[in-house]
C-alpha cells in the first residue's frame, strides 16, 4: 500500500506526457490549401439547428450549405435580389393559377443523375407531406392538394399533391388554390430545390453527406465541427465556383471566430459580434461589409388582448411609434448596423420591388406630437406597457431598454414603458403562439424571398401563419388579394403599397429598423459580398 499513491500520480503524469507528445503537431489552423483558383476559403459556421434537408432548413446556417450545393428553378440575383431563371427554361401561366414549368436540359446532380421534372415534383411532395416533419412544409401551401398531404390534424389522406403533375422529363404542371401572379418568383427559396433519387432510397446516408446539383459538393461532414465543400468541376451552370472549395468551421462563439480571423486563422466571418463592432475598422480596415439585408425588426401588438384592441387606439400606436428615437438607437446601441425603418419591407427590394417611405412622419421622432397622439388614443392601457423579448440570445435587452427610455422621455412619464425579459427563445415563442403576451413584443422577420408580398402577407393578413399579433383588417386583406391576382408586377407592387398604407393608418406593428448583414474577411481573399439574405456569395470569392 505504501508506494501506491506515488505510483498512481506517476502513472497519471506519464500518461499525460505521452498523450501530449503523441498528439503534438496536429495543427490544421490557417486557411489551408493553395492559393489562386484552387484555394480553399475557410468560413465561420454554427451547427444547423435541424437536419440538413431543403424543406427542413429554416435558418441561415443550414441555408448557407443549401445555397452552395443546390440550384433551384430560380435564383435571386446576389446584388439586386431579382428572381432570375436558373434551372427553369420557362414558367408560363395564363390565369395565375395554372402554371407549366419547363426544366432546362443538361443539368445533373453531382452523382451523375439527371435533374428532371420528377426531381422537383418528388421533392415538393416529400416536403409537403406531414409525416416527414418538414418545417418548411407551409411553403407548399398554395399548391392544390396540400391540405390532403398536410391536414391540420390527423394523418395525411394522400401521399402526393393533386396540383402537381409530371408531363414528361422536362415539363410539369402546377395548380394553385388561389391566384398568385408572383408565385414563380418564390421558387428561388431553397425549400423548392430538386432532390436526387438517392435521397429517397437511402435517407440516412443522404443526410450524413447530402448530394445536390449546385457548384459545390460536400467532401466531408463532421457534424458539430466542420464541413468541407469542394468545387464540383462538372457543374453545368454558369455560376461556377471561383475558388477550390469552402471549409465551414463550427465555432462555439462568434467572438472566438472573430478572434481567429484577426489572428489570421480564418478567412471569413459573416456575423461580426456586437462587442467587436467598435474595433472592426481598426482590425480589418475596408475588409468589413455592413449593408442592409432583407430583415426587419418591429414591435408587434397583442390585438387579441381587448385592452389593446379598442377603437381609436391607432393614435396610441402611432404616438408610440413617434416616441422612439430610431436614429439615436441605431447609432449608439447598434453602431450603425441597423438602418431606421421607413416602411414595413426592406431596402433590398429596391424601388421597383416596393421599398418606399410609406411610414412618413409616424416613423420620425417627435416627442411633442407623440405625447399628444398617445393622449388622444386613450393613453397606455393600464398606465404601463411591458415590451417582451427573449433574454437568452441576440442582446435584445439593450435596445428594448433604449426604446423604453425613449418612450418614457417623450411622454414625460418614467413608468410608461418597461422591458419584460423572457428566459428562453422557446418560451418566448410559446407565449406568443398561445397569445399570452402582456403587451407589445419584439418581432423580427427575415424574408424567404425578395418579394414585397413576403413582408406583408405572412405577417399581417388575417389568420396568416406568422401573424403573431393577430392583426386583422378587411381593407388590408382585400388589397393583398387584389395584388396577388394582378398579373402586371408593377401594378401588384402598387397594390401592396396601398395595403401598407392601411397598415400605417392602423399602425398594425411599429417598424423599428432594418438589420444589416455584417461580415469581415482576411487579406487572403477578395471579391467577398453578401447577398440580400446576408449570406456570403461563396462561389464568387477569389483566393489571392
Amino acid at each position, binding site marked *: *500500500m505504501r508506494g*501506491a*499513491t506515488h505510483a498512481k500520480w506517476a502513472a*497519471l*503524469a506519464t500518461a*499525460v506526457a505521452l*498523450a*501530449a507528445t503523441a*498528439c*503534438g503537431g*496536429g*495543427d*490544421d*489552423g490557417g486557411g489551408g490549401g493553395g492559393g489562386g483558383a484552387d484555394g480553399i476559403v475557410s468560413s465561420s459556421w454554427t*451547427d*444547423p*439547428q*435541424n*437536419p440538413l434537408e431543403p424543406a427542413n432548413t*429554416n435558418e441561415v446556417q443550414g441555408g448557407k450549405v443549401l445555397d452552395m450545393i443546390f440550384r433551384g428553378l430560380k435564383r435571386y440575383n446576389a446584388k439586386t435580389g431579382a428572381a432570375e431563371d436558373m434551372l427553369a427554361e420557362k414558367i408560363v401561366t395564363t390565369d395565375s393559377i395554372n402554371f407549366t414549368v419547363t426544366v432546362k436540359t443538361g443539368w445533373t446532380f453531382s452523382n451523375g443523375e439527371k435533374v428532371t421534372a420528377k426531381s422537383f415534383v418528388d421533392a415538393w411532395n416529400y416536403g409537403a407531406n*406531414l409525416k416527414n*416533419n418538414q*418545417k418548411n*412544409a407551409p411553403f407548399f401551401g398554395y399548391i392544390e392538394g396540400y391540405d390532403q398531404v*398536410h391536414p*391540420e*390534424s390527423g394523418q395525411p389522406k394522400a401521399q402526393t399533391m393533386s396540383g402537381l403533375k409530371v408531363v414528361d422529363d422536362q415539363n410539369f404542371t402546377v395548380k394553385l388554390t388561389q391566384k398568385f401572379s408572383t408565385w414563380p418568383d418564390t421558387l428561388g427559396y431553397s425549400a423548392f430545390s430538386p432532390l436526387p433519387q438517392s435521397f429517397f432510397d437511402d435517407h440516412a446516408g443522404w*443526410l450524413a453527406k447530402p448530394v445536390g446539383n449546385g457548384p459545390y459538393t460536400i467532401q466531408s461532414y*463532421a*457534424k*458539430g*465541427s466542420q464541413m468541407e465543400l469542394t468545387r464540383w468541376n462538372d457543374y453545368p451552370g454558369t455560376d461556377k465556383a471561383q475558388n477550390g472549395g469552402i471549409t465551414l*468551421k*463550427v465555432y*462555439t*462563439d462568434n467572438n*472566438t*471566430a472573430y*478572434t*481567429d480571423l484577426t*489572428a489570421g*486563422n*480564418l478567412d471569413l466571418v459573416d456575423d461580426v459580434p456586437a462587442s467587436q463592432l467598435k474595433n472592426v475598422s481598426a482590425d480589418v480596415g475596408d475588409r468589413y461589409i455592413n449593408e442592409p439585408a432583407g430583415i426587419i425588426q418591429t414591435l408587434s401588438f397583442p390585438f387579441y388582448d381587448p385592452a389593446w384592441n379598442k377603437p381609436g387606439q391607432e393614435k396610441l400606436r402611432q404616438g408610440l411609434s413617434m416616441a422612439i428615437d430610431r436614429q439615436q438607437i441605431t447609432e449608439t446601441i447598434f453602431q450603425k448596423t441597423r438602418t431606421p425603418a421607413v416602411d414595413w419591407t426592406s431596402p433590398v427590394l429596391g424601388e421597383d420591388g416596393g421599398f418606399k417611405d410609406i411610414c412618413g412622419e409616424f416613423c420620425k421622432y417627435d416627442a411633442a406630437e407623440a405625447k399628444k397622439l398617445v393622449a388622444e388614443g386613450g393613453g397606455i392601457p393600464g398606465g404601463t406597457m411591458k415590451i417582451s423579448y427573449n433574454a437568452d440570445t441576440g442582446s435584445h435587452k439593450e435596445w428594448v431598454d433604449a426604446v423604453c427610455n425613449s418612450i418614457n422621455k417623450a411622454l414625460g412619464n418614467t413608468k410608461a414603458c418597461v422591458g419584460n425579459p423572457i*428566459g*428562453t*427563445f*422557446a*418560451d*418566448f*415563442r*410559446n*407565449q*406568443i*403562439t398561445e397569445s399570452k403576451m402582456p403587451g407589445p413584443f419584439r418581432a423580427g*422577420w*427575415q424574408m424567404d424571398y425578395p418579394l414585397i408580398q413576403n413582408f406583408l402577407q*405572412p405577417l399581417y393578413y388575417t389568420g396568416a*401563419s*406568422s401573424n*403573431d399579433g393577430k392583426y386583422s383588417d378587411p381593407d388590408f386583406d382585400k388589397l393583398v388579394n387584389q395584388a396577388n391576382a394582378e398579373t402586371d408586377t408593377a401594378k401588384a407592387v402598387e397594390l401592396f403599397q396601398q395595403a401598407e398604407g392601411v397598415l400605417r393608418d392602423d399602425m398594425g406593428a411599429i417598424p423599428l429598423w432594418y438589420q444589416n448583414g455584417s461580415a469581415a474577411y482576411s487579406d487572403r481573399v477578395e471579391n467577398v459580398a453578401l447577398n440580400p439574405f446576408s449570406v456570403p456569395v461563396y462561389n464568387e470569392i477569389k483566393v489571392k
Partner: protein
Amino acid sequence: MGRYVIRRLLQMIPVFFGATLLIFLMVNVMGDPIAGLCGDRACDPATAAQLRKEFGLDKPVWQQYLTYMGNVFTGDFGTAFNGQPVTELMGQAFPVTIRLTIVAIFFEIVIGITLGVVTGLRRGRPVDTGVLLMTLVVLSVPTFVTGLIVQLLLGVKWGWISPAVSSDAPIDELIVPGLVLASVSLAYVTRLTRTSIAENKRADYVRTATAKGLPRRRVITRHLLRNSLIPVVTFIGADIGALMGGAIVTERIFNIHGVGYQLYQGIVRQSTQTVVGFVTVLVLVFLLANLIVDLLYAVLDPRIRYA
C-alpha cells in the same frame, strides 16, 4: 471495505434518480421546446404536433421521465433536435472534455501542491507572501476575463498559440485552455495545501520523525505531505465533476467542442434529451469521483478504516 463500497454504491441510486428528475423538471418548466425550432415564425401546428409526438413531448412529464429512464438503462439517450443521437454527441464531446479535465487536474496537482508545500514550509517569507498575493489575484479575476486576456495576448498579439482549438482538440492545443480552466482551483489547492502543511508541521509525528534523524526530504514527502493531502484530495475529487460541467466558459472562449459546449447548445435550443443526457452522465462522474476520494482517504491515512 467491500461492504462500505457496496453501501456507497447503493446510496448513489436515490441520488442519481433525484438529480435526473430535478434536471428533467427544470428543463420542462422552460416551456415547449418545439416552439423555438421554427425561428421567428410560428411553427405550422400540424408539424409541431407531429414533432411533439415524435419526441414524446405530448405525454405528461412523469410519463416522459419514466420512458426516458427506461431507455437510459438500455443505453438509449434519445435524439437531439438536429437528428443526431445523444450518445453520438456524447461520443464526440466527452473525450475532448476528459482530455481538458486531465490537463487541468494535472496542473492543479503539480503546480498547486508544489507551491502549497513550498509556501507552507516557508510561512511568512517573501516566497509565501508572493504566492499568496498571486493566488489572491487569480481567485479574484473571473475565468472568462483570464481566458479572454490569455487568448488575446498569446493567440493574437504574440501568436504563440492558435486562439481557437481545432475540432480534434489534441492535448498540446489544450494546455493553455486547461491552465485557464484550472486557474481558480489551482489557487485553492495551493492555499489548502499551504494551510494544511503549516498546521501539520508542528504535529507530534513530524517532530518524532525529525528526532529519529530521518532525512528532511523523507519527513516531508512521507510524513508531512501524506497527512496534509486529505483535504486537498477531497477538493480535487469534487473538482473533477465541477471542472467537467463548469467548462462552459472556457470551452466557449477557446472553441472547444466538449461537454460544456453541447450543454450550452442543448439549453439554448432547449433540447431536453441533450441536457438531461449530459447531466445524467455528469452526475455519475461526480458520484464516482466522490467515492474514489473517500476510498483514497484510507490509502493516505491508514487510521481511517471502512467497515
